[in-house]
């Protein structure tokens, strides 16, 4: 509809966001350049931790970037952008205010008098289809209805830039679908002042369904890795080949290609070079993925289909895929997951054999090689949690280091590489009973 106009509304130039300082500095977003033009619906897509929500907060002026420039209509942004508004993932409604008060509060903050605020709030509640619920409290509403209040409140300030921060991910499937349609209707109807929409999403289908352009981000550090145009007219047909082809294309971009082992593994903590972060997945979920992929006769499993069958969202699936790649159980090629013979063996193995396979793979990972050496070198071959944490801290911010140790603990315990005494907070080398059998 409004396509063809290309006047830039928002421009980001070399935006970088860092947290902490010194050795523990952590780069959330690195050198992002992005333009949102008038009339565009842009989706920001990426795995969790890629900084897409942070980017949205920088664009609206809630956060100030460490480096780089944010411009709105050509002027550089200082403080919160009064022409922008956000619809939040968790709705961010005030539980002690009624539906009407929740909408009116945004108007009152702008100095609108009570009577006008009341009239305008009722109109907007009408617009999103909540008439009759003006005096209800958010706790009386379903998730979908709450998000409608969130939308009405966002529209109350007549925004030019509407930002949606994973607006449908806290809703059940049916409400989410219905609300997607309604948001699109509001946008394509053109009766509102909104000049552009920016939606953060981790749902590929949702992005292809709604956006004109998808900006794909990756993590460590958060950055833009690709932009995919969606040249399909609204309303879009999810069943069409063109739609499916676009979805697969985005999957291929996101899942990437399996790298050679040396690149996948990274280096040990403390050595020069990048230490590979262990993806946060449980061994059970990992086994589930391998079993599912092994269940079909095809050698190649499209990741889009696996996600559907397993009922996972992208934030759950991507770390799993990362883990099976890292452990050498599968490869990723152009949006397909291909099990290696080892992966197939794991999927079919007994409980004990699985542990052995898993242990043999963990012993190859630099992180575990380092950890086992540390424990073996300590007195009584036992080491306190804090010691390992301190050793990791020059490499990672402390929350990341703790998280990494937690994951390593679960994997290593499963593989019986080491034991852990929770009361004492100590790692022990396990006697090599597994090998003896």
């Amino acid at each position, binding site marked *: 509809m409004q396509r063809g106009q290309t006047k830039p509304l928002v421009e980001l130039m070399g935006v970088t966001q860092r947290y902490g300082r010194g050795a523990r500095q952590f780069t959330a977003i690195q050198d992002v350049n992005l333009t949102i033009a008038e009339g565009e619906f842009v989706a920001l897509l990426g795995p969790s931790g890629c900084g897409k929500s942070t980017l949205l907060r920088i664009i609206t002026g809630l956060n100030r970037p460490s480096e780089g420039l944010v411009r709105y209509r050509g002027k550089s942004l200082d403080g919160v952008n009064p022409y922008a508004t956000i619809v939040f993932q968790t709705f961010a409604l005030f539980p002690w205010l009624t539906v009407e008060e929740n909408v009116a509060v945004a108007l009152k*903050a702008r100095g609108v008098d009570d009577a006008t605020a009341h009239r305008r709030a009722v109109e907007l509640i009408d617009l999103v289809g909540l008439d009759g619920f003006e005096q209800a409290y958010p706790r009386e509403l379903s998730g979908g209805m709450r998000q409608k209040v969130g939308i009405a409140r966002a529209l109350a300030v007549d925004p030019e830039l509407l930002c949606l921060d994973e607006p449908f991910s806290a809703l059940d499937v049916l409400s989410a679908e219905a609300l997607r349609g309604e948001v699109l209707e509001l946008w394509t109807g053109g009766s509102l002042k909104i000049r552009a929409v920016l939606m953060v999403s981790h749902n590929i289908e949702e992005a292809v369904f709604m956006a004109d352009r998808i900006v794909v981000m990756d993590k460590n550090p958060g950055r833009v890795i690709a932009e995919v145009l969606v040249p399909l007219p609204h309303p879009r047909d999810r069943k069409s080949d063109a739609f499916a082809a676009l979805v697969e294309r985005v999957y291929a971009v996101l899942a990437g290609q399996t790298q050679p082992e040396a690149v996948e593994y990274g280096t040990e903590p403390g050595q020069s070079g990048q230490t590979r972060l262990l993806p946060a997945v449980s061994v059970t979920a990992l086994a589930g993925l391998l079993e599912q992929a092994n269940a079909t006769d095809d050698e190649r499993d499209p990741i889009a289909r696996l996600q559907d069958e397993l009922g996972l969202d992208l934030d759950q699936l991507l770390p799993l895929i990362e883990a099976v790649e890292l452990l050498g159980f599968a490869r990723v090629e152009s949006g397909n997951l291909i099990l290696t013979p080892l992966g197939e063996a794991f999927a079919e193995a007994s409980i004990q054999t699985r542990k052995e396979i898993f242990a043999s793979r963990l012993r190859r990972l630099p992180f575990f090689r380092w950890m086992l050496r540390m424990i073996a070198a300590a007195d009584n071959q036992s080491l306190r949690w804090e010691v390992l944490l301190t050793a990791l801290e020059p490499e990672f911010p402390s929350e990341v280091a703790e998280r990494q140790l937690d994951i390593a603990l679960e994997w290593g315990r499963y593989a019986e590489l080491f034991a852990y005494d929770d009361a004492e907070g100590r790692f022990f080398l396990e006697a090599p009973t597994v090998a003896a059998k």
Partner: protein
Amino acid sequence: MFKPRTFTPDLPKSSLFSRADLWLLLILIGLLALAIVAAEGAPATVQGPDIDLSLSALPFYALRSVGRMALAYGLSLLFTLIYGYIAAYNARAERIMIPLLDVLQSVPILSFLPVVLLSLSAVLPEAIAVELTAVVLIFTSQVWNMTFAWYQSLTTIPRELREASSIFSFSRWQRFTTLEFPFGAIALVWNSMMSWAGGWFFLMAAEIFTLGERDFRLMGLGAFLQTAADRGDIGAIGWGLLALVIVIVTLDQFVWRPLLAWASQFRLEMIGRDDDEAQSWFYDLIRQSALSQWFGRLAGSIDQFVGRVFRQHPAPDPFLDNSTQRRSALSWVLTVVGVLIIAWGVWSGSQLLLQVSIAQWGSIILGVGATMLRVATATTLALLWTVPVGVYIGTRPRAAAVLQPIVQIAASIPATALFPVLVLALIAIPGGLNLAAIALMMLGTQWYVLFNVIAGAAAIPQDLRFTSELLQLRGWERWRILILPGLFPYLITGLITASGGAWNASIVAEYVVFNQQTYQTFGIGAQIAAATAAGDFAGLFAATLAMIAAVVTINRLVWRRLYRLAESKYRME
């Protein structure tokens, strides 16, 4: 029912005493020494009021007692809002203010009573000084948990709600009325109730305080009860206690319950549910009356008026601002002045401590030990009866419905009000004051333990109870595997509060003036009181410091470790 909660700020896991603790200790020593120096000018004799034991005087005394409580509570609320706000929004100030609160909440407040009394009566007219001391004492007993609650709710407001307030450009006032206050309201009301209940203990203690020639008593219910016990007037004791219970129950019904019911509209859960703890017939009555509409209109126009004033000043939310803060010139000046004052205090304090002889230090240390034994005995005795009774009530909803209100009424009587009665009953037998001291400690603390045991027993998940039944766990096995681990976190919370209360009680319990005669038993509380009576300021300073140091050390070495253990190992999820 009041649930005691103890706040534990995030502290380094590895070491028990941090560098911040050292600074805090110095600050505390400094302040205390300053007060002692001021106290040296206190008059040697203080005339107490004449207490009228006639029934017609009771309402007047009750009113004066409630007035002191209300004044102290008002101060506490004001302090809470300001202190909590600064601590939550100024990262630099937070680093000092929160550990300081943590130490202050664990310090036995009554140990300050003599010092505060003497230093105030040195500079102010006696009548005002004594009134002010009572208010200060109640204030210090009420304020810490309220401040923590407010600080904690300010810092736990969900980020998205803050962002929403920011993106819709709320002014500071609007942020306070729409977000911060509603978010903290329930915690603030709960903690106010607890603080109010706890305040009675200190009010009664302050009202009956007498040392040698100095009679610091205040006209009020506490002094009434004490005089009645002095004269052995059983009838007057009965009437006094009745009046106290009536006052406490009335305030509960007409002030706290309605407030709680009012605050329940600010609950955060998004699921609808009826909270029967927050029911109040009086609140329902007010709501239906014209009075509430009038109040609503009044609040609305105040909101509009203040809102208009604040609208000119947009307020960026410091929580969302990730740029580093600069230290202002004012904070530099304040820091320097503060450090100078503290340094002077520490210096004069150390001069004082030099006057204390080795022998005196020896008896102080022994005194700490003796009081510690009494505290341990009292808490053990409290445990022995509260655990079985609490588990009985907690696991039987029907028994709880009958017994809970009775327990609550019994618990609402401040132990210090009963103390004169205890003394009357026990003073004649040998070792009587020792018994009375332990009994007072128990009376003041057992309820915290009991309420926590009830709550803990009720919180043991049904599934686990069924499982243990299926496994046929009986007798000791059942206690060892199911009940005690389930109770553990609750027991620890209750015991922390209880032992704090017991230390407090030692000041009034170990040194008693009864019928113009002074009785004392060996202990640190008696030493503090005796030093005050004798005008031995060096001894008073040394003994008070020793008690504070003992309590803070026990807290860190024993209670905090157990609390961590309870948090990590015995938490039911």
